[in-house]
């Protein structure tokens, strides 16, 4: 169930390791880049490709916070809830994002636009509070700033 392109990208990742299993996290991330999440079908095909059992691969997948075994929205919002962001009021911002997007933590909006997730310290504590959407880091957040940022993700 893996497209040729996904397969090719995974093969390229695997070349960096002496055995296939070592590339399993990178391989799941390739699948996520293309499909947003790792479905049971993709997991099965991947396990076959990596010479792992489905159980082994799922054991790795579920260990990590950023491997998604359920569908997510087009844009995943990762809102930092660790200490420096907490001091700077990330709790209130979470309330703001929740009311703006209409979704709670861990939820995906009905139109499939956003999934909202907590994340641990993003290593930008000097610009707390911060969040990531997709590959982009957004720093020194305020409620108004969040409104403007969200508009950029259709």
């Amino acid at each position: 169930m893996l497209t040729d392109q996904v397969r090719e990208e995974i093969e390229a990742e695997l070349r960096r390791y002496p055995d296939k299993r070592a590339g399993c996290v990178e391989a799941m991330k390739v699948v996520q880049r293309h499909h947003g999440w790792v479905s049971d079908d993709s997991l099965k095909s991947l396990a076959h490709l990596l010479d792992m059992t489905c159980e082994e691969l799922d054991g790795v997948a579920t260990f990590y916070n950023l491997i998604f075994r359920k569908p997510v929205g087009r844009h995943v919002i990762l809102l930092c809830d660790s200490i420096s962001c907490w001091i700077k009021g990330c709790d209130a911002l979470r309330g703001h994002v929740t009311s703006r997007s209409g979704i709670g933590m861990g939820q995906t909006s009905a139109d499939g636009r956003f999934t909202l997730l907590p994340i641990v310290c993003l290593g930008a504590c000097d610009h707390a509070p911060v969040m990531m959407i997709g590959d982009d880091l957004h720093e020194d957040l305020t409620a108004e700033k969040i409104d403007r940022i969200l508009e950029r993700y259709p």
Partner: protein
Amino acid sequence: MERPLTQRIRPQTEPMNLAEYEDTGGYEAARKAVKTMTPQDVQRLVTDSTLRGRGGAGFATGLKWSFVPMGPNAPRPKYLVANADEMEPGTFKDRLLLEGDPHQMVESMVVTAYAIEAEVGYIFLRSEYTRAARLLHKAIAEARSRGYLGRNLFGSDFSFDLHLHTSAGRYICGEETALLNSLEGKRAIPRSKPPYPQAAGLWGKPTVVQNVETLYNVSHIVRHGVEWYRGLGHGHEGGTKLYGVSGNVKRPGAWELPMGTTIRTILEDYAGGMREGFSFRGLLPGGASTAFVTEAHLDLPMNFESLPRAGSRMGTGTMIVLDDRTCPVGFVRNLEHFFAQESCGWCTPCWEGLSWTERILDGLEEGRGRPEDLDLLAMHTRLIGPGRTFCALAPGAMDPLQSALKHFRADFERHIHERRCPWREQGETIGARG
């Protein structure tokens, strides 16, 4: 004041490409080491430099390398792994280096690999550092096409290739043996030691795991020598250190300063002191897993030797400041939530104990605290302390709690007597757990 680690960083601009990096003396250290020194020479230099690991534990780098089997009979391949997981809350220094000067990462790994005769390297990078990943990819490709990675570097018989591995988000991956399991494609739980990674690490082969900032120091020690390097620091510990401050200070940020700069200098001269309307109560000197120090300790030098005198550790050197408008119980509750969530679940004292501590702190914050809770918390700090768990995550989690109970005990007691958090407005609804 010299700032070797950050001198090439140009804020708000793309980092130097290979040609620019070379114009400023880049890859000279690698050339010098490979062409004019033996691996033992490099090891000796680093031992004499007093360099200690910047990832939190402060282990002497030269000593660590001395445990790697060397010579023609050593098992091969040997591996060098850069620990760029950086998920400890309050820590934000390695990101600055990786995004600001990725070629320095590549060069430092070439020099270090040469010193331990490693032929393969991995940079273990946390998933969320997407900008760093893009820049490192580019730097590695540039270095490879110029022949600075690959076979027979600088015309010698030393060969070394380097790969970027991006992780998928789990704090425990920063623990060096869990990191090795993670790289091998297994669940990232720590391994029992011995054997130490230097003897049997990745795929059972000799492996050195080193923090990003530690590695960045190595190329400068080789290029400029031990005397110069030791002269950079104040006191016995040489070199510079990336210090950082976050919290309600005027100018949160990170700065490269002489090792052993005092806490007060960093806090007042660089971070600008407290923000208007906030006063200082205490700080965690080096990330979430270090113990609080207070006003009385501000004149201590930030180095590995001095912080233990205040019952704490330098950790990663990035301080988190507690002010008078922030609840110390809520502060610690936030940290314990992090540690409980990130426990890998391998050993019972940690995974049961940390969630229990978190629940007690929840109760205190939500007005359900009982007098015996403080004894229960204190008991946990002993039962989950050093030596009782498989790895250092759990004892690290107890450091802020144990020290908060000592320095801010009255605040904990107020929560119990008033049956509420005194920092919250009366009637304010308590949000979902943060």
